[in-house]
């Protein structure tokens, strides 16, 4: 097969000593980001993005994606040892991971978490390897209506599958779209919503929003909760690793189910966080020892971790093949690609073969390197969390400020970062989801262009979105998913059960 040959060539690219070094640096930075509160995959990569501008694109994206893998691994460490989810997708890991650590089984829990993460990611990478070229080939035939339909589906799935109230999801998304429209209209060159303020000419950059919403917002929330980090000691000796590995194959069914849930939620942008919860819930429902869940059951660590990584990794599939990211972190990586002049989408697979397959090969290698690194360095990361918050907090704010400034070398961006930080704090508390906000801000221009071109083709007739079976079925599916919450609410009401409120 041609693709296998390409992949092998990709391994040759990824295995150069320089790229392996970048991989290692990326993983270490990623775990650090995952462990620290206020720094996560999305804003961590956003902050480090400007530093990679001087590197060759392939090395840069390898390092950045490895930061992502590292962050995914790192979230588990804090959940298990400190009962503090370093990342939202590791919240479900605390349910059984922390009780295990309390019983002195921290080593087992960590090994299980890391190994399942690896399995989940590996499953997703294999999926990407075989599915991505097909999707890309298929997408070559897409016109503007198809692109808008896919984006519509993406945003509809946030509304239909999110755990937040649908109205708030839509509101958050529309704010993103509105902010994306600020500045110069790319089609006609007209100034929109700048109200004569020169700083608004450039519009709002989503990287600033990501740093503010996820970075500062998280710090404010942590301040309010007044966390003091009191954790269990984590050390993993090889004997425990082998013992846990011998035990893990028993949970193959849970593992496989979690892989599938994760990949599904990652490709349709449900995201890693709902995937981990859903997978945990399913594992409990199907388990023989249901009552043990929440009490330190190893299966309760396996399920969410596998799904979170499968989702986190497979979110890159639509990003690479269609140019539509499945998660905020994938959006930041997409932003990086654009800055290097690489336009993600089906053509990338034709024009930049080296790059695409180098990246896919680096996913395999990065996850293997990541697994080894985290298994051997856990005690060190655990000690970082013992640094008091009064030192960590201001340092993270400084890092965020520097990150926001370096995006455009613009002081106004730093001010906006603080504003976004406050918005992030309030939205988080009122259950407005942040991911649709960020994705709408990223995709706003693209979605608008696709919509306007479709309208242009059809002369303003919405029927263009049902003009052939492909675009018609995507749009119809999107509408069904969009109306899902309404339909299930009506069904509940018909049954006379409790009605889920809209706000």
């Amino acid at each position, binding site marked *: 097969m041609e693709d296998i040959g390409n992949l092998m060539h990709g391994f040759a690219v990824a295995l150069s000593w320089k790229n392996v070094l970048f991989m290692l640096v990326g993983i270490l930075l990623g775990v650090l980001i995952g462990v620290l509160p206020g720094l996560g995959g999305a804003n961590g990569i956003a902050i480090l993005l400007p530093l990679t501008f*001087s590197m060759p694109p392939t090395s840069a994206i390898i390092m950045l994606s490895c930061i992502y893998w590292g962050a995914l691994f790192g979230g588990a460490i804090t959940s298990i040892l400190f009962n503090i989810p370093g990342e939202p997708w590791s919240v479900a890991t605390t349910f059984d991971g922390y009780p295990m650590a309390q019983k002195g089984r921290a080593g087992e829990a960590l090994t299980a978490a890391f190994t399942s993460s690896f399995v989940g990611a590996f499953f997703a990478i294999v999926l990407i390897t075989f599915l991505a070229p097909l999707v890309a080939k298929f997408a070559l035939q897409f016109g503007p209506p198809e692109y808008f339909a896919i984006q519509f589906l993406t945003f509809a799935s946030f509304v239909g599958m999110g755990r937040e109230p649908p109205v708030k999801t839509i509101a958050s998304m529309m704010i993103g779209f509105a902010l994306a429209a600020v500045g110069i209209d790319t089609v006609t060159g007209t100034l*929109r919503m700048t*109200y004569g303020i020169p700083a608004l000419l450039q519009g709002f950059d989503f990287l600033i929003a990501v740093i503010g919403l996820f970075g*500062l917002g998280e710090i404010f929330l942590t301040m309010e909760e007044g966390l003091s980090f009191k954790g269990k000691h984590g050390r993993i000796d090889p004997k425990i690793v082998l013992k846990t590995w011998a035990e893990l194959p028993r949970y193959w069914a849970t593992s496989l189910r979690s892989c599938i849930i994760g990949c599904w939620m990652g490709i349709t942008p449900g995201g890693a966080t709902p995937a981990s919860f859903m997978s945990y819930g399913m594992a409990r429902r199907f388990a023989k020892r249901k009552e043990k869940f929440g009490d330190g059951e190893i299966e309760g660590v396996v399920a969410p971790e596998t799904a979170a990584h499968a989702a986190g990794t497979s979110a890159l599939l639509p990003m690479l093949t269609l140019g539509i990211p499945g998660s905020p972190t994938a959006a930041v990586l997409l932003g990086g690609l654009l800055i290097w002049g690489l336009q993600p989408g089906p053509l990338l697979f034709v024009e930049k073969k080296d790059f695409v397959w180098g990246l896919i090969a680096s996913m395999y290698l990065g996850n293997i390197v990541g697994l080894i690194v985290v298994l051997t360095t856990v005690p060190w990361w655990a000690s970082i969390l013992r640094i008091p918050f009064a030192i960590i907090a201001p340092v993270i704010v400084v890092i965020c400020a520097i990150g926001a400034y370096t995006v455009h070398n613009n002081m106004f961006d730093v001010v906006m970062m603080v504003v976004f930080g406050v918005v992030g704090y309030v939205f988080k508390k009122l259950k407005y989801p942040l991911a649709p906000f960020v994705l709408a801000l990223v995709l706003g221009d693209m979605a608008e262009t696709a919509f306007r071109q479709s309208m242009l083709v059809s002369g303003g007739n919405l029927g263009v979105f049902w003009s052939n079976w492909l675009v018609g079925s995507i749009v119809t599916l999107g509408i069904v998913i969009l109306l899902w919450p309404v339909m299930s609410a009506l069904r509940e009401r018909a049954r006379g059960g409790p009605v889920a409120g809209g706000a």
Partner: protein
Amino acid sequence: MAEKNDAGKGGVISTRSMEVAVGLLIALLGLIAVTDSHRVGAAWAEDGPQSGYFPNIIGWILIACGAWVVFQQLRRWRQDANKVFVTLHDFKPVLTMLLPTIGYVILIGFIGIYVASAIFIAGFMLFQGKYRWLPTLLVSVGVPLAMFVLFEIWFLVPLPKGPLESLLGY
């Protein structure tokens, strides 16, 4: 916005007033988008949709969402009487982070990011963490220094600098 309520100890900001406030802000944002879209033209010109066509739709959806959030909250006004957005007791630490951060950002414009960072970290450690001057000095000087080496020397990314840096020849 910060409606007083006797439900908690000390002052609280209730969830319901916060919900309404945010709902109104969202609707206001929608109104801004709609107004501006009509200024640049939200209709159909001879060469296709005008600039305001898409933002106009977005604006109307925002207004609808904001109105819906407010409406839902007003309907549940009594039931939600005891829901607390944040107590003032819990909000104080947030302010001790937010206000210095605002001050820090203002300071960057005058004395550069490195010196401002040092002052910010030192202030936070001294007043919030109650550290002695030696660890405070080490961290607050060490971190900006490391950033300086990383950005200005290794990666050649210029950050805002002030009088101190120009005195040292940068």
